[in-house]
């Protein structure tokens, strides 16, 4: 367990007054509060540290204890033992979101766990903001591959020990957020449960570039096929397609394959288009014979 310098977190020195602490806390809280830094897990973490530092330093009892024992931290074995006891009695909180390769955080920033350092010195925090009516919302991010996003599929998560299964409709976008109503923390006083928000991070594991519902790909084309025409078989996300190459196809020529792009989110049967750009490959390591023939060709022009 690491020693945490609460003064440093708030940018103060050891003889800061209660007023200094209040001011420093408010100033930092206004900068890093998760409400003002949406979708920023880093701010959530930072704000928790600021909150924790404030919780200790703004409370004269806690501050005294911290100042007294804090500097001898490495020798303070009794705290280490206390920590172990606390852990064996089962720690509260923790990550309620498991599985799915995602990450979990709550965005109001005041329900998060304090550090081991804090709980070993002061015990688990009792108070914190209590649910008054609506339960707290949970936020999670989930990583999926573009090839998975192509098809409607199911994902199972466990949130607070309860398994929930969601259907991810084909065509979900990178950064898209879906709301699962009622799967946040329980409400109080007859209020509704919080909601669970899941943000999808879609990683491209394909050879295509996605722009909205359209896909783009550059396909190499050999010189002779470009000049004389022919056929080329290319991969699309829905299988192979045979294309007819027109004679005298230019380098950089583009074609559009209608409906061979990405599915449109929640629009059954609708697809974007696939755009193919041909990149003509100029032959290399020419033999003497080939050079001769190219020279003959060039003289005909």
């Amino acid at each position, binding site marked *: 367990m690491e020693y945490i310098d609460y003064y440093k977190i708030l940018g103060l020195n050891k003889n800061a007054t209660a007023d200094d602490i209040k001011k420093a806390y408010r100033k930092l809280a206004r900068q890093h*509060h998760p*409400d*003002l830094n949406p979708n920023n897990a880093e701010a959530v973490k930072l704000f928790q540290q600021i909150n924790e530092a404030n919780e200790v330093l703004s409370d004269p009892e806690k501050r005294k204890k911290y100042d007294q024992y804090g500097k001898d931290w490495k020798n303070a074995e009794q705290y280490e033992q206390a920590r172990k006891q606390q852990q064996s009695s089962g720690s509260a909180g923790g990550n309620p979101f498991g599985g799915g390769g995602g990450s979990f955080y709550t965005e*109001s920033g005041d329900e998060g766990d304090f550090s081991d350092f804090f709980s070993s010195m002061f015990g688990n925090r009792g108070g914190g903001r209590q649910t*008054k009516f609506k339960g707290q919302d949970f936020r999670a991010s989930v990583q999926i591959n573009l090839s998975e996003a192509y098809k409607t599929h199911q994902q199972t998560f466990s949130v607070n020990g309860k398994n929930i299964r969601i259907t991810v409709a084909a065509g979900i976008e*990178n950064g898209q957020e879906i709301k699962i109503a009622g799967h946040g923390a329980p409400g109080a006083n007859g209020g*509704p449960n919080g909601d669970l928000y899941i943000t999808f991070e879609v990683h491209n594991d394909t050879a295509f*570039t996605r722009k909205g519902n359209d896909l783009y790909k550059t396909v190499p084309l050999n010189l002779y096929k470009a000049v004389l025409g022919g056929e080329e078989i290319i991969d699309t996300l829905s299988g192979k397609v045979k294309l007819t190459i027109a004679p005298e196809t230019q380098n950089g020529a583009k074609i559009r394959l209608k409906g061979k792009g990405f599915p449109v989110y929640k629009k059954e049967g609708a697809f974007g288009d696939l755009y193919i750009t041909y990149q003509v490959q100029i032959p290399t390591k020419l033999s003497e014979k080939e050079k001769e023939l190219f020279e003959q060709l060039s003289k005909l022009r």
Partner: protein
Amino acid sequence: MEEIRKISVEQCCIYYSVEASFVQQLDEHGLIMLSHSGEEAFIEYDQLPDLEKYMRMHYDLHINMEGMHAIKHLLQQIDTLHAEMRRLQEGLSEE
């Protein structure tokens, strides 16, 4: 039709220990939207996350109504810019 779930502003203020005038001001500034039935004002459940957010900003961070109004506007802009940035980051060499 889906039942609209709501709570009276009066009851809500008791649970959250805030002044009714605070909630009314949020409504007047367009930060939340209240619904009315006769004399009584209600807040729909889907407005509660916003209400809680502005409560935190106001009571914890000491931001006034005008400040929260400006923040709302800026957060919307950030949202738009994030979406735009994502589209650009998707590395488009093609048109």
